[in-house]
């Protein structure tokens, strides 16, 4: 007899069917998959697709009680799996494991600051759709067309600031938008204090914001989810 493994329910794969794909911009689309009845998750968590030896993680943007699992995917021309998702026929079955990750809203007396770049808004959308409100949200994108789910965040956040890193000086900005990167907004406009920072997106943003928190907001907590 050997010691039985402590087990990991996460390892049991699920199967979901592709139900819908809608393009949010030229390079980004939203997917809806059927939710297996036995699959449960917390807002902010992600699933891991297993496909022909590939493993890819995507954060869920839907509510945990939704009958469908929603994903926001940026189609990378060189991205093997995003290309598969971009071209898959409706009805295609996918295998995944999960839920993965600890990137969930904790709630505390400190104000919450959500910082997302690009499709890193997905976990925040799941939290927002599940009733989280009153947070400050910065969404870093290159141009205004990439401000996905803006109405959801405007309705739930106490302050929603789109940060447009590539807006030319002469271009008009959407209402309330900031011309520059999220790190610049945090450095120049977020008042001193202790916050709960939730960061999701590119690793460069995670690095820069985390180092800024150490320097400027040292009593804060940092929860991060890196999108590779």
């Amino acid at each position, binding site marked *: 007899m050997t010691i039985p493994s402590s087990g*990991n329910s996460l390892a049991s794969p699920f199967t979901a069917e592709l139900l819908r794909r809608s393009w949010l911009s030229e390079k980004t689309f939203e997917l809806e998959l059927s939710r297996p009845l036995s699959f449960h998750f917390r807002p902010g968590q992600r699933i891991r697709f297993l496909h022909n030896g590939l493993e890819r993680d995507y954060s869920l943007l839907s509510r945990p009680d939704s009958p469908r699992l929603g994903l926001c995917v940026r189609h990378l021309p060189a991205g093997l799996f995003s290309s598969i998702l971009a071209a898959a026929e409706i009805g295609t079955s996918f295998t995944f494991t999960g839920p993965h990750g600890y990137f969930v809203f904790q709630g505390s007396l400190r104000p919450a600051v959500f910082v997302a770049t690009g499709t890193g808004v997905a976990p925040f959308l799941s939290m927002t759709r599940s009733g989280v409100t009153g947070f400050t949200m910065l969404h870093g994108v290159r141009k205004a067309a990439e401000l996905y789910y803006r109405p959801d965040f405007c309705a739930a956040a106490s302050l929603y600031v789109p940060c447009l890193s590539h807006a030319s000086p002469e271009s008009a900005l959407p209402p309330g938008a900031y011309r520059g990167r999220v790190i610049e907004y945090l450095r120049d406009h977020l008042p001193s204090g202790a916050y709960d920072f939730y960061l999701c997106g590119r690793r460069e943003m*995670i690095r820069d914001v985390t180092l800024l928190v*150490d320097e400027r907001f040292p009593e804060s907590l940092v929860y991060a989810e890196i999108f*590779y």
Partner: protein
Amino acid sequence: MKTYVGSGDRGRTSLLSGERVEKSHGRIAAVGDVDELNSLLGALIAALPEKQRELREELQGIQADLFHVGAWLATSPGSSTLEMLQEIGPGRTKALEAAIDRIEAALPPLRSFIHPGGHPTAAWAHIARAVCRRAERQVLRLAAGETAEQPSSVIAYLNRLSDYLFVLARFCNTLHGIPDEVWQK
């Protein structure tokens, strides 16, 4: 996929519960010891003879436990993150005890101190045992003053794991026909 982020380049890191701490923090030291222990188990597994499939799986189960231990150690008591972690409960310690009894039944009785060493697999097990004891001491330091329930079950698990690694080291020598080398005072 790049493995580096760079947010720890100035000597601080994040706990699972969100706090930014120095990398020399006791909680990070404990996580590091458990990581080192887990890596040593990996070295031991890699050195095991091909036919020891069951033992390899047993050790891989312990490696999975140690990931859970590491996650617990990286989380401050009272954090709601703890709700998402898998506990290392008394059942896992009992499983180690059963494995110790099973292995000991195949070994000659021991009445003296023995030299840590012998076959390379036994040597790896002895190093892992010593690091396991260090991890246990680090967790004890951490647990001093804390009232959370998990550290006590983690401490019991690490205590039993070092016992397991001791008998496993002897078993590895036995497998290769190497007798215990008794310490001569």
